[in-house]
């Protein structure tokens, strides 16, 4: 009889930690993804089977199970569906699952919130896979049996029994959906022949806190599906996380946007939405007033940005005795300045003439942001 799984957890693939609704599908998955010969695409039944096939037919040694997690790539260990998984890995998996909430009756219950997704997906897990203690009674496949005729060998029974062991009634329908925060996420995309993945990929659950300061906020790594190749024997050159390269790159400290000027952000859009049905002209006339102020605002903002292009300027601002007199700071911009919004650079240049319009006449020339000609084009890279 098949070995008992103590819990009605879903069958999962030891090689890639992916869960399935049905062990039959799991077995299909393993054959297609992990036990397929990359040369002739023959589907074998186990890791050792694949290795022997490649050795004998193609004279090639395979040292890793294709598409497997780094610590689960042992080709020696014989796994077929849920059969043959090292007991400690089963326990580990249970532990991670049980955190999900359905498992309060589980014997080794743990505050699972701590040890959830990341290990499950990226799997440091216990890597002490000991090839010596294969639970299956079938050591290395003897030569001659490497071909696909598995029905002849002892692996057969599990194949038959497996589906029955997964009592459908015992499985929550959408365990992942019911407890989205604490279950490890559904991995990956549905495979090419899916139809069996019960929960949709939950890319969006934790994804958007767009507000963070300059930070790109793709979903946390552990809540994210992975990029995995669908075919055996291939590898997608991409970081494991299924997030665009640009998002991953933009997280890097080097690419953080420069801190915005502390000035107000007047040009930020208001939630107000012009109804799209208005004609262009109408729309335009309605917005004339807004345009004017927006133009001014944009110009101001640009000045402010220019003012802060150089890091040292920030310090200077702090040091100035009366910083509010600085022309570059939009908040305190004298009303006159607002009249010349369009060409901020000229705007900035002009007051350099002494006594031109600055209230108080305090004009720290050397520190003036616009005073350095060509500054916008030559700004230092600021990382």
């Amino acid at each position, binding site marked *: 009889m098949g070995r008992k799984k103590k819990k009605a957890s879903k069958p999962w693939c030891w090689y890639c930690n992916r869960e399935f609704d049905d062990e039959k599908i799991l077995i299909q998955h393993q054959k297609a993804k992990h036990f397929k010969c*990359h040369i002739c695409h023959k589907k074998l039944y186990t890791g050792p089977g694949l290795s022997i096939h490649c050795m004998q037919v193609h004279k090639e040694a395979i040292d890793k199970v294709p598409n497997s997690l780094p610590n689960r790539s042992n080709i020696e260990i014989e796994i077929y569906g849920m059969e043959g998984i090292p007991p400690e890995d089963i326990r580990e998996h249970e532990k991670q699952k049980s955190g999900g909430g359905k498992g309060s009756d589980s014997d080794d219950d743990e505050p699972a919130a701590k040890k959830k997704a990341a290990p499950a997906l990226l799997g440091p897990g216990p890597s002490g896979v000991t090839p010596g203690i294969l639970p299956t009674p079938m050591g290395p496949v003897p030569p001659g049996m490497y071909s696909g005729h598995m029905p002849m060998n002892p692996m057969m029974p599990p194949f038959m029994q497996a589906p029955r062991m997964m009592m459908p009634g015992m499985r929550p329908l959408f365990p992942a959906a019911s407890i989205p925060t604490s279950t490890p996420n559904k991995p990956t995309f549905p495979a090419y022949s899916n139809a069996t993945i019960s929960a949709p990929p939950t890319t969006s659950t934790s994804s958007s806190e767009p507000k963070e300061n300059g930070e790109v906020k*793709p979903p946390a790594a552990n809540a994210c599906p992975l990029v995995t190749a669908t075919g055996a024997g291939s590898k997608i050159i991409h970081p494991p996380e299924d997030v665009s390269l*640009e998002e991953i790159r933009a997280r890097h400290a080097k690419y953080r946007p420069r801190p*915005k000027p502390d000035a107000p952000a007047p040009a930020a*859009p208001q939630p107000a939405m012009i109804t799209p049905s208005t004609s262009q002209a109408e729309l335009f006339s309605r917005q004339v007033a807004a345009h004017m102020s927006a133009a001014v605002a944009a110009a101001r903002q640009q000045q402010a940005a220019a003012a802060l292009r150089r890091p040292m300027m920030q310090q200077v601002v702090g040091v100035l005795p009366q910083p509010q007199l600085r022309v570059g700071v939009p908040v305190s911009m004298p009303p006159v300045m607002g009249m010349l919004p369009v060409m901020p650079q000229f705007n900035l240049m002009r007051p350099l003439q002494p006594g031109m319009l600055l209230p108080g006449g305090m004009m720290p020339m050397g520190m003036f942001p616009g005073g350095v000609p060509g500054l916008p084009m030559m700004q230092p*890279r*600021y990382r």
Partner: protein
Amino acid sequence: MYNQMGTTTNNPNKDLEVTSPPDDTVSALEFSPPSVPQTFLIAGSWDCRARCWEVEASGKTVPKAAQGMDGPILDIAWHDDGSKVFMASTDKSVKCWDLAANQTMQVAAHDAPVKTCHWIKTPNYTCLMTASWDKTLKFWDTRSSVPMMTMNLSERCYCADVDYPMAVVGTADRGICLYTLEGKPAEFKRIESPLKHQHRCIAIFKDKKTKQPTGFALGSVEGRVAIQYVNPTNPKENFTFKCHRSTGTTAGYQDIYAVNDIAFHPVHGTLATVGSDGSFSFWDKDARTKLKPSEPLDQPLTKCAFNHNGQIFAYAVGYDWSKGHEHFNPAKKNYIFLRPCFEDLKPRST
């Protein structure tokens, strides 16, 4: 810089190197529209700057100007009159760069980095379309600080393209949404993705006879491109093909690389793809054949573009993060190459 050694190792296709390339990876690459007599090339980069070159008939490139933003630039777009360029950045804003005056002004804002920007010109309106990781698509009259229209996306925008009267956006959840721009922008329909992996780039193509947009090519991180018609007369018209994959196997694996960009030839209707594998390829989607593969380069190709009359193919070479930040080597130079391509992209004669 122009010694023979350099050209052979870094430029296996013996193409023309653009002078003074960006200091970091190129994230956007666009030629000037037909409305300007000269040919200009604009490149946006991760070094937070956009640069403009004039490309002379000889192939000589002259750096003309550069402008910076507060974060890396993710996309650029030309105004149809060729006088301005729009730059979308991770600093959540889009700026308009007036090339003649060499000044910039903010024209759009989002709550998250802006992934794409496109200039839309139609018979009765013009506007800027921006799509962001804040899951919105916005249309801007560039004179207003408030968008003309905001539409929600199902997820973060990963790629978009515009060819009046059609616009298409690909999102992080492998969603594809089509928009019609006639009259005013409106959602047209959402399509189920023909691909199983993360969307990376999208390009609209035109019908050969009517010259109207009729479908799009979609590239994914799994070295695959889907050719998808909006209204296929026969479902078999839609197909996918593999590209940017290693030919042999390394340690038992075939390496599959992301398709980083797709561009359609403006005259022939054939297409070019560039990939993380460091190669570009030319394809004839109607004959379903590869027209020409390139020699592989030692770094990924991140972007490509055709000039308006289809004589020049430009491609950018630089690290694209596909192997993670550990493989980033700041010492490696970034390149943009130009290649005469009109003949290479002629469709297969049948």
